[in-house]
């Protein structure tokens, strides 16, 4: 018996073989041909017409085939399948377009002096070979660092409150954190202007910008950290406490180390959330064109601000700057994103 079992190979008879797929491919091919033909003989024109007709012909032919061999329910199923596929395609097309245009426009302006020079002695209308965005890089670096110092401890401690203390207020605070994550970025900027810049000695500078960004970063860090802390098995906590450790010791020596990678992920996702924010900076950092090493004083530049200026200026040269700036920003965000994914943590739950 075991011998014969070893000889039988696992099969998946429910999967379609290439032969079974052939009619589908043929019908799609025919639909494509039909849409080309219709575009040729009617006044309809353009990519939109091709796409629309292909969708109509493809859906119709596939569902009619299903109707003939499987009946009405199968035809309805085929229609919905092709609508769902089309919907998903429409969702993912912009992503591809965004990546492609950013890269193709952006690389044209890449050159080394971008990273060594500032806009102090160059104008946005100059060709991109003049000047650079060192000041903006330094500014963005400062903004990220200070925002991290402000938000990560608070985000993680809030997450600890929500997962470890679970006090009577936990549900309410959870609600507040969620509400906070919905605060529009422009409001965060206005708030820091109305509170800190107007009333305290801190004027428009990197630190003021970081305050505004922290309002956006704290809820992101909190929510991700909370998800990660919830994944730490309760046995570990109980084991710690059964050994006579205090709750503080248990959290510090068992829970947090167990969730370490996830907490780093939370931090990275928080940084990714704010690295490209523009609106809050418009009210808080001044948007300097020269290098400023002091994060606590004087106007500061930032990458998004550089892009913003280039876009607003509207000349071909300034727009080239915007594309190149956004490419560098996009690369930064992508790196952060990949780092967060590699460390995992966030998706541990969904396997």
């Amino acid at each position, binding site marked *: 018996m075991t011998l014969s079992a070893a000889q039988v190979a696992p099969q998946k008879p429910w999967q379609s073989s290439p032969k079974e797929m052939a009619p589908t491919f043929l019908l799609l091919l025919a639909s494509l041909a039909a849409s080309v033909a219709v575009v040729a003989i009617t006044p309809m024109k353009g990519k*939109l017409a091709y796409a629309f007709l292909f969708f109509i012909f493809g859906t119709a032919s596939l569902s009619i085939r299903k109707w003939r061999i499987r009946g009405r*329910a*199968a035809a*309805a*199923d085929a*229609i*919905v*399948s092709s609508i*769902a*596929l*089309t*919907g998903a395609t*429409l*969702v*993912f097309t*912009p*992503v591809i*377009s965004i990546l492609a*245009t*950013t890269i193709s*426009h952006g690389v044209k302006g890449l050159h080394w002096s971008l990273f060594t020079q500032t806009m102090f002695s160059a104008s946005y209308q100059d060709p991109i070979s003049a000047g650079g965005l060192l000041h903006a890089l330094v500014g963005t670096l400062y903004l990220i660092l200070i925002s991290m110092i402000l938000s990560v401890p*608070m985000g993680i401690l*809030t997450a600890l409150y929500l997962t470890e*203390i679970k006090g009577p*207020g936990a549900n*309410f*605070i959870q*609600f507040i954190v969620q*509400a906070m994550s*919905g*605060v*529009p970025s*422009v*409001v965060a900027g206005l*708030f820091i202007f*109305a*509170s800190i810049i107007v009333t305290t000695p801190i004027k428009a500078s990197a630190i003021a910008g970081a305050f505004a960004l922290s*309002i956006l970063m*704290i809820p992101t860090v*909190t929510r991700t950290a909370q998800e990660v802390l919830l994944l730490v098995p309760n046995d570990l906590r109980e084991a710690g406490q059964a050994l006579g450790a*205090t*709750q*503080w010791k248990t959290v510090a020596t068992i829970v947090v180390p167990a969730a370490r990678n996830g907490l780093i992920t939370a931090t990275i996702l928080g940084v*990714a959330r704010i*690295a*490209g*924010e*523009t*609106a809050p900076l*418009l009210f808080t950092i001044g948007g300097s064109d020269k290098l400023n090493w002091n994060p606590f004083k004087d106007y500061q530049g930032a990458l*998004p601000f550089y*892009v*913003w200026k280039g*876009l607003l200026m509207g000349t071909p040269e300034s*727009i080239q700057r915007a594309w190149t700036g956004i490419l560098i*920003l*996009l690369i930064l*965000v992508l790196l952060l*994103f990949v780092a967060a994914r590699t460390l995992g943590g966030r998706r541990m739950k*969904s396997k």
Partner: protein
Amino acid sequence: MAEKVAPPSPREITTKPRVSDRVFRGTVTGVGMLSLLILTLIGLFLALRGFQTFKSEGISFLTGYKWESVTSDSGKVTNVFGVGAMLIGTVLIALVALFVGVPLSVLCALFLTFYVPDRLKKLLVSVVDLMAAFPSILYGLWGYFVLMPMAEYWAKLLYKYLRWIPIFDAPQPFFERSPFIAGLVLAIMIIPIVTSVSREIFAQTPLDRIQAAYALGATRWAMIKTVVLPFGSSGVVGGAMLGLGRAFGETVAVFSVLNVVFKANFHILYGAGGNVASMIILKWGEAVGDETKALLAAGFVLFVLTLLINMAANSIVKRTLKSGK
């Protein structure tokens, strides 16, 4: 028997936390409360700074269409501040975004949950998450240079064939930087939010109901219609409202592709629209004194609006997710 035995009173269990624990609990609780403090301060400061505007403009701050700060030759400043047109525009653009974005998101979420094989699913889910991480100025730049030329053409088609529907009509055939285009950009920006919320909810559909439907000879669509959609619909509404909150507050991307005009315009294809957030950055540069205060007041209005929508959305999503457990 006759003796009455007093029911035992529950013994109190007391544990006196050690000092280190009390410090830990105190610190963590205190920090936990900070977010409440921040949220309160945001409302308080914006309301306080905008108070003068609310007082001088009254209800017409919300209903008026005019936004003027004129200094006469004698140096007298005349101010009229109203965000009515901007509020109308904000809602209009957000509705365009929802109308386009929500169906696509729901389809995409269904596709990701029930149609694609596991390995491809992981990749596509990552892409959706990445979309959420794109800076909004990237959407603005792309929207202006790539989407707008296309969308202008679509707008012309809509105008040509559907102008008998009032919202597709336009006073002049001028379709650049219209609420329609801003709505499309916003639609793409809210898709990741609505998709991931919907996906999370669809994935919570009780497996035994799904199996029951399939065991009765259901096709995939019949199963989705009878099991998944009744279960997930209210959660999708919650997700759509989270998207709405995002759409209301989005600034830079909308500003890049919208022609802000202080007039109530219900023709979505026509290149003149409004949006509270864009208006704030449009006017910020040149604003001084009272106008700055008026902009802070506008920020307060925006804050309250998005806060209410988000709170409602979050409670709806939470309730749906609970009902699946």
